[in-house]
């Protein structure tokens, strides 16, 4: 598994430049102690060992270990071999190794590189699958992350994706337009749909103080039933001449071009949506870190009362942030109906992405690039999970377990340090260290 966890080391370190001042600032205020300074190399090792990168990698290792335990305990070969453990213990260990090895090599084959295929084009296909699964996860994760940064908890990803998909789908088969332009119009429609749906929650929060958690949960159901109704109503979203609650396929001009269209080889499903998602990540990074509006967003996220005193219109920030967050989530809806499944959609179009996005945002610590890489990690787990289910008979639900354990452990660095007996990083007082959980304000 080392080849899998290596790249993650860099992925899950959100941004060293922002954590560095945190760890050095208190050090300068500490009075000079009589203990001599530790050698430079020790300090560096300590910093690396105590830093987020190691904790993240170890969290992933621990999560995969938990997954292995589940696999082993439910594996029939292991159970039979364990039945005669004391007469031939070797069998049990062989079965253990077979079960775990089979599972994780299937995961790797499904997510990154399949050495069993003939040509390189086919061998590398799993990696493109990973990015395909990651595309909507990143987009929706960005939307949820933006909410977190403003102190809003957007559980409404599901509803926003459904509405966005409905808008994009409707444009995609109703209005013939030239190639590419049509697709862009659909994407804009999806963004508008998601923005509108999330905007309702933002508006109600700003104007009446309605709790955004309740409103977004409720809007999920409203969107689901609304689109279900439209999908079974002839003349609305239902495919003509069909009795199924399903929409007609998108016109060819609205479909996002895939990587295979571009290169002319293979059967890659990776589509233009991935480019859009990269752009969205850059946009959110710029918005949050470089723009005046983003500064207001972060100020409200840190402390709405202080922000108001400083002259920031908090209601306006709530509305704007929810609108933008909804637009980002809407991008996920567009990628679903224009990229992944273009043959028409049903009310289950969100496929759990709306909720997965919350864990993606948490793992990414609500930083744009963190979300980007955690989305790719979860995309890899998803792509590999399907292969694992098909070839090893391990239910894909185990991926949920692995994902959630990763997020839990990353959220509690002291726990991981205790498990592995790592040194506590110096210069961070106890309280500070304990508080170094992801900065998410939810009130």
């Amino acid at each position, binding site marked *: 598994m080392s080849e899998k966890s290596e790249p993650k080391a860099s992925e899950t370190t959100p941004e060293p430049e922002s954590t560095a001042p945190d760890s050095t600032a208190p050090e300068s205020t500490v009075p000079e102690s009589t203990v001599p300074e530790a050698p430079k190399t020790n300090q560096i090792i300590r910093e690396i060992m105590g830093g987020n990168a190691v904790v993240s990698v170890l969290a992933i290792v621990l999560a995969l270990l938990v997954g292995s335990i589940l696999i082993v305990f439910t594996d029939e070969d292991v159970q039979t071999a364990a039945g005669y453990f004391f007469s031939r213990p070797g069998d049990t260990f062989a079965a253990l190794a077979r079960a775990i090895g089979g599972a994780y090599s299937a995961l790797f084959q499904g997510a990154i590189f399949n050495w069993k295929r003939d040509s390189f084009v086919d061998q590398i296909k799993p990696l493109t699958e990973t990015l395909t699964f990651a595309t909507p996860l990143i987009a929706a994760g960005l939307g949820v992350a933006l909410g977190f940064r403003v102190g809003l908890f957007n559980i409404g990803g599901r509803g926003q994706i459904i509405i966005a998909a409905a808008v994009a789908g409707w444009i995609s088969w109703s209005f013939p337009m030239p190639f590419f332009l049509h697709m862009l119009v659909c994407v804009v429609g999806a963004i508008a749909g998601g923005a509108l749906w999330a905007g309702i929650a933002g508006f109600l929060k700003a104007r009446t103080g309605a709790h955004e*958690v309740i409103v977004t949960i409720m809007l999920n159901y409203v969107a689901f*039933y609304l689109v279900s109704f439209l999908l079974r109503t002839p003349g609305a979203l239902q495919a003509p001449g069909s009795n199924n609650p399903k929409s007609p396929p998108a016109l060819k001009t609205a479909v996002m071009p895939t990587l295979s269209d571009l290169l002319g080889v293979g059967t890659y499903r990776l589509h233009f949506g991935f480019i859009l998602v990269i752009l969205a990540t850059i946009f959110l990074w710029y918005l949050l870190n470089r723009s005046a509006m983003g500064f207001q967003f972060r100020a409200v996220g840190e402390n709405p009362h202080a922000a108001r005193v400083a002259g920031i219109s908090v209601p306006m920030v709530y509305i704007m942030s929810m609108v933008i967050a909804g637009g980002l989530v809407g991008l996920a809806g567009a990628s679903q109906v224009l990229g992944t499944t273009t043959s028409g959609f049903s009310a289950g179009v969100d496929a759990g992405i709306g909720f997965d996005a919350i864990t993606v945002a948490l793992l990414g610590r609500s930083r744009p690039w963190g979300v980007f890489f955690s989305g790719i990690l979860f995309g890899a787990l998803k792509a590999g999970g399907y292969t694992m289910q098909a070839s090893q008979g391990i239910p894909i639900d185990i991926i949920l377990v692995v994902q959630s354990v990763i997020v839990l452990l990353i959220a*509690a660095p002291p726990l991981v340090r205790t498990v592995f007996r790592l040194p506590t990083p110096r210069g961070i007082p106890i309280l500070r260290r304990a508080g170094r959980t992801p900065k998410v304000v939810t009130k």
Partner: protein
Amino acid sequence: MSATAVTPSTAPITHETAIRRDLKAPIALDVFAVVALVLAFLAPRPGDSVFMLSTGSDAIQLPPLSAPSVVIVTVIAVLLVALAVLAHLYAARGARGRVPLWLLAVFGVLFLVAFLAWASSGERPVQVPGLLVGTLALSTPIIFGALGGVIGERAGVVNVAIEGQLLLGAFSAAFVGSITNQPVLGLLAAMAGAVLVAFVLAVFAIRYIVDQVIVGVVLNVLVAGLTSFLYSKVLTSNSQLFNSTDRFPQIPIPGLSEIPIIGPVFFRQTIIVYLMYFAVFMVWFGLYKTRWGLRVRAVGEHPTAADTVGINVNRTRFWTVALAGAIAGMGGAYFTLDSVSSFNKEMTNGLGFIALAAVIFGQWHPLRATLAALLFGFATNLQSVLGIIGSPVPSEFMLMLPYVVTIFAVAGLVGVSRAPAADGKPYIKS
């Protein structure tokens, strides 16, 4: 100048009170009254509406109520308008002018009767006991979940993991109940499962000071993944052995169960529902009438003050969250020991989130949260009832109704909901 400034004024000090009229509730009532008027005059439906008040098995039979639906709807619409006017009068009384709860309740019930009469006219009769029985059945897990949420949040720990607690409760109840064929052991297992989730929540939230909402969300995912995995891998491998539990039998309470309407609804239930009545009372009594409750609320409102008078804040929080888990676990047991006898993937179906909404909707008060949960259960049940009697409204819109009503209620009637002051904030002793 200076002399007048020092001379104390003999006039009584008058505090200026800002008159803040809150018109949200009256306006919401206006909207519903207008809807009723529209139903009465613009979209009248011919025929009679029949309300059945007794089931076939009742000892005391009440005759069915029957009247032309136009008459019922018109009369009620006029009453609703009167109530809305009354609400405006209450609101106009200045700062203390809040619309009383009874008015809202009466308004709601009348509106529903009008709507049912309108929807069912000329179609099949409305089975009132059946409607209410179904409401209680759908509400029970939500009530348990909401009670768990209320006491957890009163102690200052936000519990988003109610969904996970219900789900693990349902799973362990089915699993243990099937192996032992003892529903009581299943119930205990459900409580143990949910307490396990609560322990993880408490350890991460209190010991490791991780954001509580994050832990809750992640725990939901963890439990969903774990139970679905074990369901596919273990329960379905031998569902006869692992996933078909005995259910609790219905225990009619002698005497009480024969009261018309009330009897079949409240007193012909399983032990879990009776436990629910007990839990609602005990949580209310415990929180507001005992020393324990005072401590819990103190810890949730002002942990520093609580600590100053010698209450161990984090220990109180830890055990309160565990207790909340046990209560939510009983709600989980309801799924597999009362309504159906086997576990299914993600069978709680988001009810834990509805329970969370009920906590906030009920303003962190056990009784109000229970009422909110009943409202959600009723609205969900209404849809299936209207499906049977053949309503002219598409079923999706009926299914949507409870959620839309909740949004309206949260935005209009409840407005700014105030959580316990230290809700979700870890206590770090300095």
